[in-house]
């Protein structure tokens, strides 16, 4: 509850500090503030509270995911001043939009009422449209913003229509009432149509396979920091919200919807990986890799009651390695007009630490042991085998092997090719963010039970 208020207040504070000429203080204030909010949120663990007539329910699911979002936002905010060096006069706008986006994300996992959920998803989306189009002189960024806006508004329409039909069938926006009505036998047919439309809208937002076509274009065109935000924070938020919605919508998934989830998950993994193999632009490659990871995360929906912990673990592992990878990508592609793989040639010699971090994070995404990505996949597959989806697990394992192919393309470029340009000094912040993100990733890999047990 206080998490949400504190995040919004911090965003407003950023705008006010700018008025009083405290531009240099904005990023430190935000990071300290977010750390304080992280502490505040973590203390609320294990005492769930519902406030404002059940509008906001901070149960353990909401608390742990909010903590994850806040950690990711701290990393992204820390990277901001260097990335926006040329537009440093607008830094307060960029930071406060990110904070408002975070507040939308927290509302999306802590909702107890569909209206709160809708407001959360719209706060998140509108902030993202602005960020995607924020490099307004670049035609690529404009195009990415426009595409994302049209697709996002389209998906919002579906979500809204779904909410309206669910309201029509149950007579309430309250999640507890909807859960009760959804599990009773004599619910109107509108309820199922509404649930399907809502799911379609959410699949657009997580960029799962039949609805993924916007993702590569938007990821490539947006400013690199926004791409980092979309592929880590937004993906995790959308996935967590979708998980919570499915859990509340119908506890016992009917057989047909299980089949639909299996098909969508397999499609996402396969299409994402196959398409990623032939990409030369790193941002675009990571967009397809994100689509395949969305496919993996969608698998958790097949065992909604037991797999919240696995989803948290997978999301943390994926997002932390994504942050580490993007910290390096931001450094390498700074002041370049493209993000092609040849930019990374010889990074292993010119900047061994960053090359090492990028290697670790890509190995984690591919699922190589000692990194948490591997354990995330192990727990996920174990969960799915328990639920009896053997075919799905086989396809997922094959897909993990395919994904090694394109991750290694980048790793090989860093270590086997000659550098095309002189080494540039690496600003401290890139080292700090990249190393601490990958250290967190390895730490949760070494002590997986810490995260897994939080939600079981």
């Amino acid at each position, binding site marked *: 509850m206080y998490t949400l208020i504190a995040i919004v207040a911090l965003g407003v504070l950023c705008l006010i500090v700018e008025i009083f000429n405290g531009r240099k203080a904005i990023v430190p204030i935000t990071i300290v503030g977010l750390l304080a909010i992280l502490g505040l949120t973590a203390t609320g663990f294990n005492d769930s509270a519902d406030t404002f007539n059940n509008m906001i329910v901070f149960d353990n699911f909401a608390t742990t995911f909010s903590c994850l979002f806040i950690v990711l936002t701290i990393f992204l905010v820390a990277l901001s001043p260097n990335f926006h060096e040329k537009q440093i006069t607008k830094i307060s706008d960029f930071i406060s939009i990110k904070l408002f986006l975070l507040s939308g994300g927290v509302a999306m996992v802590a909702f107890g009422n569909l209206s709160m959920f809708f407001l959360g998803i719209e706060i998140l989306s509108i902030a993202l449209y602005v960020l995607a*189009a924020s490099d307004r002189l670049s035609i690529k960024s404009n195009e990415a913003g426009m595409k994302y806006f*049209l697709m996002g508004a389209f998906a919002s329409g579906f979500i809204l229509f779904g909410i309206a039909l669910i309201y029509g069938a149950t007579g309430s926006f309250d999640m507890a009432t909807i859960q009760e009505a959804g599990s009773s036998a004599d619910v109107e047919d509108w309820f199922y149509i509404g649930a399907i439309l809502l799911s379609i809208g959410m699949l657009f937002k997580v960029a799962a396979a039949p609805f993924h076509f916007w993702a590569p274009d938007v990821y490539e065109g947006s400013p690199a920091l926004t791409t980092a935000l979309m592929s880590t924070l937004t993906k995790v938020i959308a996935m967590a919200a979708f998980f919570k919605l499915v859990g509340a919508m119908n506890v016992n998934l009917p057989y047909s919807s299980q089949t639909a989830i299996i098909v969508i998950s397999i499609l996402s993994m396969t299409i994402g990986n196959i398409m990623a193999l032939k990409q030369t632009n790193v941002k675009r490659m990571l967009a397809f890799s994100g689509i395949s990871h969305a496919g993996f995360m969608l698998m958790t929906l097949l065992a909604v009651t037991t797999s919240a912990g696995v989803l948290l673990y997978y999301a943390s592992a994926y997002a932390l390695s994504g942050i580490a990878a993007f910290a390096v990508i931001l450094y390498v592609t700074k002041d370049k007009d493209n993000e092609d793989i040849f930019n990374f040639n010889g990074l292993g010699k010119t900047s061994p630490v960053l090359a090492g971090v990028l290697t670790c994070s890509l190995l984690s995404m591919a699922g190589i042991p000692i990194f948490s990505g591997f354990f995330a996949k192990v727990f996920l597959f174990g969960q799915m085998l328990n639920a009896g989806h053997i075919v799905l697990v086989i396809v997922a394992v094959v897909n993990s092997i395919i994904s090694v192919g394109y991750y290694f393309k980048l790793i090989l470029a860093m270590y086997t090719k000659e550098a095309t340009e002189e080494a540039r000094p690496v600003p401290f912040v890139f080292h700090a963010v990249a190393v601490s993100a990958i250290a967190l990733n390895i730490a949760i890999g070494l002590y997986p039970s810490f995260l897994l047990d939080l939600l079981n």
Partner: protein
Amino acid sequence: MQNVLQEIGVDNYIYLSTILFCIGIFGVLFRRNAIVMFMSIEIMLNAVNLLLVVFSTYHQDAAGQVFVFFSMAVAAAEVAVGLAILVGIYRNIHSIDIDKLKNLKG
């Protein structure tokens, strides 16, 4: 209101708003002028607003009408951002035809 709803029937309202929603979808998918696409999105959202109000009367529950206020405010904010992006595009390429935006491919 309740009488009107009973005479016409809640089903007909659902059909009407579904048709409006579909018109909006086809507008987004088939028109290439950005402003017309924005208008189509507005039709989609307003079809839902109509549906929400109908259900609100049907259930004798005010929550649906309150939700309409939220969704109107959100739609206004969304279109404001969309138009701002459109102005940026117009300044760069002097056109608002979506088909001219083809730099990102692969």
